[in-house]
């Protein structure tokens, strides 16, 4: 099986600052993969690199076998990568429907877009009720649903989610994780998501990568990572003796 997304030895710089240090990462078709790491470890940078918002100094990014290292964001979205940005970032003064349409910006098939709009309303009934409401007035959880739906509007094969649970109450966090699993199962979309809380992330992911200061320092299946003493110490707050 070829990987859906494959980063190979990717190096990224912000000016002189070496933000990603030779990282290799894959996401298989229909897989849920979690990207873990502390603050400023380069998680968002990885997501933006996959989206094509940041230039890669060396290394390759492949999507469905195609080399997209130098491709525009637009091209990548058309190819099937979508994004749920950090902190959701719905367009606050646009209605729910307009936000969804923004997610379909790279598409040209009007009929298909209208169909998908309907589908999203069925899929997220909460949004259907609020289609003419300005997104900025939605609750945090609703905004997160909208961000998911907006990403789905480009009919992606892979959604990159940057901390989708950020700033949500524990109850909503569970709901969002369930939603990710649902999107993955029902729509067959692969998900690469950033999460600070390793235990939660690994409860739904099949595999995970751990970033530290721009470098992937650990990787493995969810089980392996959960059992890894380093992870337990650093992320799960369990002391060594336990």
């Amino acid at each position, binding site marked *: 099986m070829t990987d859906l997304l494959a980063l190979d030895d990717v190096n990224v710089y912000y000016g002189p600052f070496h933000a990603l240090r030779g990282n290799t990462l894959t996401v298989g078709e229909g897989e849920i993969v979690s990207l873990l790491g502390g603050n400023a470890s380069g998680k968002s940078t990885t997501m933006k690199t996959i989206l094509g918002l940041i230039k890669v100094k060396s290394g390759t990014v492949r999507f469905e076998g195609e080399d997209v290292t130098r491709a525009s964001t637009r091209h990548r979205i058309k190819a099937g990568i979508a994004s749920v940005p950090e902190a959701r*970032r719905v367009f606050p003064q*646009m209605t729910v429907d307009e936000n969804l349409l923004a997610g379909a*910006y790279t598409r040209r098939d009007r009929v298909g877009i209208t169909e998908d709009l309907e589908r999203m309303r069925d899929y997220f009934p909460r949004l259907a009720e609020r289609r003419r409401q300005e997104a900025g007035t939605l609750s945090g959880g609703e905004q997160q649903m909208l961000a998911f739906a907006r990403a789905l509007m480009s009919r992606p094969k892979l959604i990159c989610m940057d901390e989708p649970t950020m700033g949500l109450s524990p109850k909503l966090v569970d709901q969002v994780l369930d939603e990710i699993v649902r999107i993955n199962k029902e729509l067959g979309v692969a998900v690469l998501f950033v999460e600070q809380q390793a235990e939660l992330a690994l409860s739904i992911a099949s595999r995970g990568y751990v970033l530290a200061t721009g470098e992937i320092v650990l990787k493995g299946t969810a089980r392996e990572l959960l059992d890894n003493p380093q992870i337990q110490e650093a992320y799960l707050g369990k002391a060594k003796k336990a």
Partner: protein
Amino acid sequence: MLDTLIAGLLRGNVYALGAVGISLVFGVMNVVNFAQFSFFGLGAMLAWFFITTLGLPFWLALPLVLVVCAALGLIINISVVRPLAKFLPLAAMLSTYAVSQILDNASQIAFTAQFRVFPPVLPNSNLHIGNMRFGTSDLVMLSTTAVVMLVMSLFLKYGKVGRAIRATSQDQEAALQMGIPVGLVQHVSFVIASALGGLAGVFIALYVGVANPASGLNIGLTAFVAATLGGLGSLVGAVIGGFVLGILEAFGIHFFGDTSRQIIIFVILIVVLIARPGGLLGKVPLISTEPLTGTFLGKGRPLRIPRWVWAAAFVVLGIVIPLLRNDYVLITGTQVLIYAIIAAGFTVTAGQAGVLALGQAGPIAIGAYMSAALTMQLHFSFWVALPVAGLCAAIVASILASPIWGVKGHYISIATLGLGITIVAVIQLIVPQGIYNIPVPQWFGTALTTPTAYYLIDFGVLVITLLVMWRIRRSHLGKVISSVGSDEVAALASGVRGRNYKALAFAISAFFAGIGGSLLAHQYTYIDPTIFTMLMSLLVVTIVIMGGVSLPYGAVVGAIILIGAMELLRFTPELRIIVYGLVLILVVRFRPGGILVRNS
């Protein structure tokens, strides 16, 4: 009364068109676009040219104007604004200011500075309801605006690109992640804004019946205030702001006369910025992308200047040049010295406090008029009047500027620009005519009238200025001011009240501006308000940026290049301004720290 209301509506109409353009561009790029201002003057001149010189009918001339303005707007965005907007929004704003000066003066070279009678293409007062008179022309203007606004709002609401424009202005980062081509969106916005500016320009010419290349700035500033009043970035707000301002202004002129215009506008601007910085309709954004913060501090380190260069410069400027006894060189040199004094004093504001004040002509004018008044009315000696004029400039400018220090980034620049214009407007209100026969300095009974004497006086003052500026830089106070400039938030966190130090820096700069003004007045022996123009302010800023915003001696180098060289090359005034503008753009683009500073 009703007539005044109609006049207000028609003016407001123009401001609304302009304000929509300014707000649109601001929304998608976070840059206040001064270049937009020029399109008001340019639109009017182009229409005049197409109609009277080429003999085109109005219905053909109008779309042509729009096309030319749109194309120019696109070129400006591609070449100047977009490359800078990404990493230095304040520099981008400054560049658009330079572009606006270039356009105005290119237009002056092309069409001459005369006021042209705009052809009455549409009947002007052929209709009346009761005793209210208006014309087909007025109706056409108002309805065109209504149609334009309608089309715009439909486009923004339902058009794909229109929605992309809104998405970009609400959250550029998110728009990028949706694959929205933000660059294209910005180009489109610029094109629309420029065309709207051209349209507004044609309308204002139709309304007042004359066209003039230099008329854009005033209208532009008003349109900008309208956009701010409505809430920058909000298009509905821009329209409302435009009409509100037009009507207020019409009544202001009705009651207080034409000179009160600028004062009214500036007062409104300040009140809005302080009381409701988001404007009437501007919403506080959910995610603050900090569009309006950031200063223009030169990055990189200054080149090392060996000691002998200082000595050599002192000898050449202070001894060799006076010994040449060439009146032309000395007179030019005096100009250089005066600007060097003003600019060196300005470095503490622009460089250290990080406040790019765009209205230094204001305090310069205060100094000049004060000094003239003191020597002529109160018979002060020049030597006493000189520092007193500086003090007056510092005090008056500080009092007037005191409300603006709570305001941020771009807004401070614009507020100071408005301040400079207003000061000169007030002076014009008090002393409409020029002042003649300002006494020359005396030295123990002998009148110092020779160019050499002026030169030496100014050289002495410059040396003192540089020494003072140097002391300030190295003092504790100077360090605090610098810390405020480089990171206001951090400074605030450590208990430093940024606004007080900005105000203090501005007062110091105003003091030297006043000194410079006094020197100018006694050298010219004649002053009038037309000397203290926007151009003077632009020149001060350009000198400082060229030399390196925070280097007092850089100001001397900047003054030598920009004034000395221009004079010796005998450029015409229009050409000079174009060169200033180009220099400013090039320095900001390629050497943002100034020519004496190595890029980091």
